[in-house]
């Protein structure tokens, strides 16, 4: 049996130690925060990595494992989370969990009639325990014991005063200075101290006041009662509602099953918006890919011709539209297409008079033309590169044979070049279609989905594609956010793209059969 070299084993152990240390630190922090789902994932991931590193049978997995971990964390987990959100009613007014809302309502108080205010002083002992001494308007003293306040006589021997009469210690507890006081206020402010038949709570840095809790919740019946007004509330889909219709804000997130999906299918407004946006998205992707491929292939065939001088130079400058980040070129084109001040309209006005001013951003059709034009400009270099590569792979002997057989230029192109080209390029075309289908950047930066459409039920403009429509619903929708509906649409987009990819696989296999036949 061959023993692995000592230095390599040492490196492996050291790296694993560092990873485990980081994981343990992360797990502790997550445990303190209460994020148990992430904690479980981190723990399982670390255990798996350790197991794979030390087990002989699972050792070959070591190259796959980091990829699998990231796949799970960055792809599978967000998908599962999106599907979960799409089955809830998460939107403005319902973004908190039930536990968070109950905690907030539990903290709400109201002032009883003639609520007294006390000035406070906080004392701390060596074990970091706290006691609070309150002084009332008439000089009465209250001392905290655990979570209650009790009256205490001014001449109680525990109280240690200094020369000015300030109480500087109570038994072992020392008066906190300003800095110490500020560091413990966070702990004190969430507690309700019982006193007689009312409660005492922090009012400001040096004051306490009498309060009464505003809400009482009965676990068994699920009824929330407002103790000040006596009104009872029961929760209806995440909002506590009274019989007369008034509600308590905030509401919380509850599961509503498949309602978001059925809304898309049955609600007339959403359904018509969905169909309109879906149709435009398909057309947009189709025309973009078609035009950019046509131009890219045309340029590639020209550049493939050995008789053209300066091919390197042309190829270099043709790459530029693809090389510039989409963000920058989209914004520059937006400026060029500006209806009043843009260069394109100014040129058209100079050439054809002011009737030729085109409302690029204001008219639905022209806005679509503009988007397809800009996307074609940005994508054709990519098509040019892949076409160049694919054209090189077609042996020139076939062309000579075809010429001898009397094939015309067009026949050579359609019978030889295109089929052989499509074998290698087709999956890339389909990939480009899928990418353009979801090309949020260009659409959102240039038009934001506008110009608007009259009588649209959701924020769906004339140039909105599915993904930008989802974004607008999520962040510019009714009352602000409609995350649940947007998640449902996102899941539908996922299904569509997954179907396109599946077709992609089938399609490439079919073409491989064609190749084998040639």
């Amino acid at each position: 049996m061959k023993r692995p070299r000592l230095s390599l084993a040492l490196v492996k152990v050291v790296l694993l130690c560092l990873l485990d240390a980081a994981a343990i630190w992360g797990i502790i922090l997550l445990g303190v925060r209460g994020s148990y789902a992430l904690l479980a994932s981190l723990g399982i991931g670390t255990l798996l990595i350790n197991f794979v590193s030390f087990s002989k049978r699972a050792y070959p997995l070591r190259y796959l494992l980091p990829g699998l971990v990231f796949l799970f964390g960055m792809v599978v987990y967000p998908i599962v989370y999106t599907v979960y959100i799409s089955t809830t009613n998460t939107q403005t007014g319902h973004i908190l969990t039930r536990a968070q809302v109950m905690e907030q309502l539990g903290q709400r108080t109201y002032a009883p009639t003639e609520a007294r205010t006390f000035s406070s002083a906080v004392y701390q002992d060596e074990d970091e325990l706290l006691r609070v001494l309150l002084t009332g308007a008439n000089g009465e003293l209250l001392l905290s014991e655990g979570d209650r306040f009790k009256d205490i006589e001014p001449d109680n021997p525990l109280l240690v005063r200094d020369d000015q009469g300030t109480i500087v210690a109570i038994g072992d507890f020392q008066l906190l200075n300003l800095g110490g006081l500020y560091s413990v206020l966070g702990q004190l402010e969430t507690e309700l101290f019982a006193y007689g038949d009312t409660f005492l709570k922090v009012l400001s840095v040096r004051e306490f006041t009498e309060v009464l809790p505003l809400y009482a919740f009965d676990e068994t019946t699920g009824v929330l009662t407002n103790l000040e007004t006596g009104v009872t509330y029961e929760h209806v889909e995440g909002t506590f509602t009274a019989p007369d219709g008034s509600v308590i804000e905030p509401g919380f997130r509850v599961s509503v099953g498949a309602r978001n999906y059925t809304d898309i299918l049955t609600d007339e407004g959403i359904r018509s918006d969905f169909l309109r946006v879906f149709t435009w998205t398909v057309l947009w992707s189709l025309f973009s890919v078609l035009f950019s491929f046509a131009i890219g292939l045309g340029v590639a065939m020209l550049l493939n011709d050995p008789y053209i001088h300066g091919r390197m130079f042309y190829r270099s400058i043709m790459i530029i539209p693809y090389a510039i980040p989409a963000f920058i070129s989209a914004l520059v084109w937006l400026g060029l297409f500006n209806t009043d001040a843009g260069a394109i309209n100014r040129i058209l006005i100079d050439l054809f008079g002011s009737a030729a001013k085109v409302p690029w951003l204001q008219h639905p059709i022209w806005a679509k033309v503009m988007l397809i034009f800009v996307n074609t400009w940005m994508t054709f270099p990519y098509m040019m590169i892949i076409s160049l590569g694919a054209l090189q792979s077609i042996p020139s002997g076939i062309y000579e044979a075809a010429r001898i057989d009397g094939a015309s230029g067009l026949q050579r192109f359609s019978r030889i070049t295109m089929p052989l080209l499509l074998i290698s390029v087709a999956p890339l075309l389909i990939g480009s279609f899928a990418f353009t289908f979801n090309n949020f950047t260009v659409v959102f930066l240039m038009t934001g989905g506008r110009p608007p459409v009259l009588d649209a039920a959701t924020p769906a403009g004339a140039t909105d594609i599915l993904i930008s429509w989802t974004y607008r619903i999520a962040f510019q929708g009714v009352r602000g956010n409609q995350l649940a509906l947007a998640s449902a649409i996102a899941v539908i987009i996922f299904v569509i793209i997954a179907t396109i990819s599946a077709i992609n696989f089938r399609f490439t296999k079919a073409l491989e059969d064609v190749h084998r036949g040639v």
Partner: protein
Amino acid sequence: MKRVALALLALMLLVGLTAVGQAKLTIWADDVGTPVFREIAAGFTAATGVEIEVVEIAFSDLRGQFITAAPTGEGPDILVGNHDWTGELVVNGLLEPIDLGLRAAEFNAVGLEGFSYGGNLYGIPYGVENVALLYNKDLVPTPPTTWDELLTIAADLTDVESGVYGYIVQNPDPFHWFPMLSAGGGYIFGTDENGGLDPCDVGLATPGAVNGAIIFDQMIEDGLLANGADWDTMTGVMFSGNGGMVISGPWLIGGLRDAGINYGVAPIPSIPNGDGTYGTPKPFASVRGVMLSSFSENKTIAKDFLFNYIATEQVALELFAKDPRPPAYLSAFDKVSDDPDIAAFGQQGQNAIPMPNIAEMSSVWGAWSDAQALIGNQEADPIQALQAAVQQILDAIGCEE
């Protein structure tokens, strides 16, 4: 080996636990507010020993990031933002009520109204601003007092070929469009019997609002107003001296000064109602202020900072020096109102009404902006577009007809 491992484990436990405990405040502000708040925070830290971290976040991202981060505990203790965020944030359970008590009298009432929701105050205002008519004195020596005068001046000055615009305003932009609609009686949300806003009473298609929209439509048809002029177009025209008049706010003054434009500030001209009377435009008041997160773990300290450091005249003047919005702190406003621009905005501000801060407002902006775009693009006539917008808003809010 085992002992070393145990020791390391214990060390890590300690590190994890001590991460909780030290009192610290976090403030989120935009690029203009951050330097000022850092200076104020330094004073607070020196006096109390509490660290304050001021994080700079782009203004357009502040609200969205706060909504995402606050429930997870990653949000700030104090948020610097606009008053129209109040409704949405309160409805999501993210803001803590602030009780100013008698100190409320030290502040501008419109500012306090902007941050109030459901009877509670959720923010301390520090700047109240509204739009007015800014004009280039070289092109327009005397500002118009009625809208007819404005149209005459614009007709004389506008020469699209050479790029001179007598009158320009960002459009579609409902915030800047509102004075035209409100002059004749248009409004966003009516008031209900309790004095709060009634989201099912949308007044964007009242005869007064339609009147304003018709005037807007006519201006575009006559070529007196550029359709679709965005911020960059408008600032380009104004800063190059080619713009006569613009409806904008104090945020434009810095750029006008830098460009050397001889500018003046005047109230927005009154709008003819069509029967011989004129209506006074009522622009929106936009209030900038400081809010307290309900997920803060140091609310008492944060309130101490807000009441004793932010809500003071000295800080109001410091904020004004860096970010020239008319102060909401009344004694600070008196001190700075010998600046003629501030005085002019303040004069217009007497007719200003705060933007509605209820969460339903976000449904309004989108539909309203679309209506203005449809009218400007000549794809719908004003009454049709506004009625469709009102219907869309009511449907989105879920009101029953």
